[in-house]
């Protein structure tokens, strides 16, 4: 029986085709999961979502009313977390990326601590935050305490994305800038930071996403009072915590839980697109002025 010989070019085409099909399939699957999740949320939450839902405070443990106070608490917690974490994280990143050699002992120790910190489960952060901010510093169950706990959680991701972004900027820029008699600070401000903007923005986004989704770390720190906070020292319930509470502890809370989840996801999507547009615009402006 004669052997069938498939020419090399045909074999390559078949291999190319199957590889491409596989990749398309993977992309399709990923998008499908996303679309499905979104569709489920919209279907479950749309009916309950209204202007009143966004502007009223919850009543009857969240079965009735809306999520206005929850939204305010969430945004305040997020704001405090970012204000505390971003400068610290970026300063550390500048130090690690620009001023200490990559294999120095100091750099290794800092990086190792950050890796460990990144792997700590959020409930542990919650316990730490409770012990340190709430009790030791006497902040009690408060938005401040929750925000600062979140800040600790965000440090590793903000630092490592920023450091990676700055390291990815070619050394040629640093050498050229130095050869032009520019100081390191000037090179940092005018060349390295702008070039690393996409990475900084990406890190910020991941951080915001984590912060918005956080429940365990906030349970013991910012607490779960669902009233409108009067100050940063008041307790305030975060959106993710509200969703958790509605779906686990409140019989008949499924509809508002869906609606709140829809709000959370829209918030994430909105922040994502905004930050992306911002980063893009910033880069264009840098190039064009």
């Amino acid at each position, binding site marked *: 029986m004669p052997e069938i010989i498939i020419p090399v070019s045909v074999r390559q085409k078949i291999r190319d085709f199957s590889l491409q099909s596989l990749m398309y399939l993977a992309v399709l699957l990923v998008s499908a999961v996303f679309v499905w999740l979104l569709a489920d949320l919209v279907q479950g939450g749309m009916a309950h979502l209204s202007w009143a839902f966004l502007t009223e405070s919850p009543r009857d443990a969240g079965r009735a009313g809306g999520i206005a106070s929850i939204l305010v608490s969430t945004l305040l917690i997020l704001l405090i977390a970012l204000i505390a974490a971003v400068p610290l994280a970026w300063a550390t990143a500048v130090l690690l990326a620009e001023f200490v050699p990559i294999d120095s002992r100091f750099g290794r120790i800092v990086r190792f601590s950050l890796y460990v910190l990144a792997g700590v489960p959020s409930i542990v952060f919650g316990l730490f935050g409770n012990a340190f901010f709430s009790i030791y510093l006497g902040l009690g169950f408060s938005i401040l305490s929750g925000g600062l706990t979140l800040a600790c959680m965000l440090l590793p991701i903000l630092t490592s994305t920023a450091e990676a972004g700055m390291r990815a900027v070619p050394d040629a820029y640093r050498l050229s800038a130095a*050869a032009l008699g*520019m100081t390191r600070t000037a090179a940092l401000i*005018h060349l390295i930071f702008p070039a690393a903007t996409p990475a900084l923005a990406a890190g910020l986004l991941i951080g915001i996403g984590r912060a918005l989704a956080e429940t365990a770390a906030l349970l013991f720190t910012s607490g779960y009072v669902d009233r409108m906070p009067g100050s940063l020292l008041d307790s305030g319930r975060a959106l993710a915590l509200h969703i958790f509470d509605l779906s686990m502890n409140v019989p008949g809370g499924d509809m508002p839980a869906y609606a709140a989840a829809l709000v959370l996801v829209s918030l994430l999507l909105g922040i994502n697109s905004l930050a992306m547009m911002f980063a893009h615009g910033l880069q264009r402006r840098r*190039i064009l*002025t």
Partner: protein
Amino acid sequence: MNGNHDAFTLGPLETGPACCVPHPLIQVRNLSLQYDGKTALDTITLDIYQGCITALIGPSGCGKTSFLSTINRLTDLIPRCNVTGQILIGGQDIHHPNCDVQTLRRRIGMVFQKPVPFPLSIRRNLSLPLNEHGVTRKDEVAAIIEQVLYDVGLWDEVHDRLDASALSLSGGQQQRLCIARALALNPEILLMDEPCSALDPMASGVVEDLICRLQGRYTIVIVTHNLAQARRIANYAAFFWVRERAGQLVEFGRSQQIFESPRHELTAAYVNGSRG
């Protein structure tokens, strides 16, 4: 870019002092350099004359780039790089604690092997270093930008798109922009590390003409692998050779002497193309 080389004319330059007055501007004394404890330059002693073009030639890895980087102390930026010996510029020791490295580097322009335009507009590429050195008056900056772009023959090509990204320029234009950027700070010395190696012969010719026109006004040290080019443009030549992975200066002299009657047999073999 290609094709319109004969379309533009090179800008006029004022004539400087006569070339090759043998006045040593840079005096290098027993300069050694180690990377991570491994010697890359071994006791180099050399004078670089004011207003002249000095070519550094030698095989790959013999330390030409390293030598250039010691002159503007760019080696400070390289971790575990150790420089010993003395470099005097205009009689002043550049390693002296009183020597401000930013001021030093302002006096010494450097052009790298690969063009490094900053990811900014053409205008900003030139104004940024100026601003950093305290030249901030708008009209003054604009005048300098026009002058240096004219000097490198780029004005006619880019004057109507100064706000476009410098990355949109061709390779040859980028390299000339980098030369312009170095010139904008009005340096005394220009260090050029194979400025034409990434360019096609046409663009390379333009840059070579430019370097010739800068002669006299600046003290130029140029690294080149193109011996014909070195012979054409250099007043002095220094031949480096690598022995047991350490770069050494084998011969230094007037370019004509190095290329036509080299004293050292290694030099003779290298310039005749039989070694290296």
